[in-house]
Every structure is written in C-alpha cells, then in structure tokens.
C-alpha cells in the first residue's frame, strides 16, 4: 500500500485526475473496499480472484503466498492512451516497489 500512497502523494492534483491508477490483486471486492476505505484512496481496486489476469500478464509467483497459494509478483505497468505498455517494473523482493519518481517520470513522458 505504501506504493499507492507514495504515488498518489507524488502526483499533482491535475495529474491525479488525468491518470487512472488501478490496483489489481487476488483480494475479494470486500477486502479491497476495506483497504480503499482504510486508506481513503480514490484508486480503482480490481479483484483478480482466480489470478487469470495476473497469469495473462505473466506475473504469477507460484506458491509464493501462505499455504503455498499462488500470488502475483508485485509489478507496476504504465499504459498510454492507446493501450500500449510504455514502462513497467517487476520487483525481486516483496519489500521493494518502484520509486514513485520513476513511475512519475514514465507518466509525464507519455
């Protein structure tokens, strides 16, 4: 969640309305809503319960969750108005997420 908050804080008001930040996880809608409410964020939280989308993106970490559950590899993707991937970052350590300034640079460079 630190990444989402860092990103939100780094974007200017104008930028925040001009970009859609979508958070995808296997969490159910209920759980996502709790997270969204708790953090008072205006991001879209989407539920990828069976990891179908995560799999389509090649981002599954097999057995990486508790009970050996499959989980997503944390990643950030910047997609432009034409639906084209312009920048992405996949982490090698769950504690580490891309620097908001790197994401910002990618957004501002669109």
């Amino acid at each position, binding site marked *: 969640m630190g990444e989402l908050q860092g990103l939100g804080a780094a974007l200017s008001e104008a930028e925040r309305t001009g970009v859609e930040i979508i958070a*995808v996880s296997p969490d159910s809608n209920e759980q*996502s809503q709790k997270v969204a409410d708790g953090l008072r964020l205006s991001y879209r939280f989407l539920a990828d319960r069976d990891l179908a989308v995560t799999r389509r993106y*090649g981002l599954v970490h097999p057995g990486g969750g508790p009970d050996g559950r499959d989980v997503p590899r944390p990643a950030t*993707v910047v997609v432009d108005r034409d639906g084209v991937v312009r920048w992405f970052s996949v982490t090698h350590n769950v504690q580490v997420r891309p620097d908001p300034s790197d994401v910002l640079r990618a957004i501002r460079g669109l």
Partner: protein
Amino acid sequence: MTAGWLAALSVVVAAGAAVAYAWLLRIALVRNHPEGYVIAFAVATMLAALAVRRAKRRRWPAWLALAFSSLLLVAGAWYNFVGARVPGGPTALRVGETAPDFTLSDAAGRPVSLASYRGQKPVVLVFYRGHW
C-alpha cells in the same frame, strides 16, 4: 566505552533500526533499501560482541544484547535475502506492445475493462499480493 554502554547501544541500534524501518515504510528511500536494517543489525551484533569481550563483572547485559541483536540479524537477513524473494522470469509485458486487455470487478462489483480507457486516459496498473 564500557561494556554496559556498548550493550545498551547495541540494543538501541537494533531495536531502533527495526522500529524506524517499520515506521518510515511509506518513504520510498527507506522502503526500497531493506538491506539497511540488515546492516544495522550487523552493526548492533558487532557492538554486542565488543561488549561481551569487554565485560568484566556483570556479563549478562552484554550476552543479552548479543542474543537480541544476533537473533534480529539472522531473522532479518533470512527474510530479506530468502523469504521476501520474488522469482524472476519473463512476463508478458513488452514496452511498445499493447497491454493485454481484461475485465475485472471493482470494489462495488462493477466490471471495469482496461480497453475502456483507450482514447480516455493513461492507466497505471499496480499488481500487488493482497492482504490475508
């Protein structure tokens, strides 16, 4: 520095690093350098070892500090270099190619499709592990 003070300093460095990391997690510079806490635990362990060497009469504070800091060092190093590791490998992402389209439900149960943003606004997709 006496053994007592060294032992105390060791505990302050170790506990302080753990607390500081947790507390400052929101700051990218802190969060993205978890090896920092491993280094701090290593420093604390060295301070405690020094305390054990110097202790003449009351030895238990030095040994306690050594146990505390080395425990944090082992646990912290294991977590940072093993437990928190995410495997590498290719993704389906290619810069310059269209992002795979999808439709998923949002928190209100409404379907949201990535393609619907085309011609509207850029999208930042953040894949995260979720909470359990």
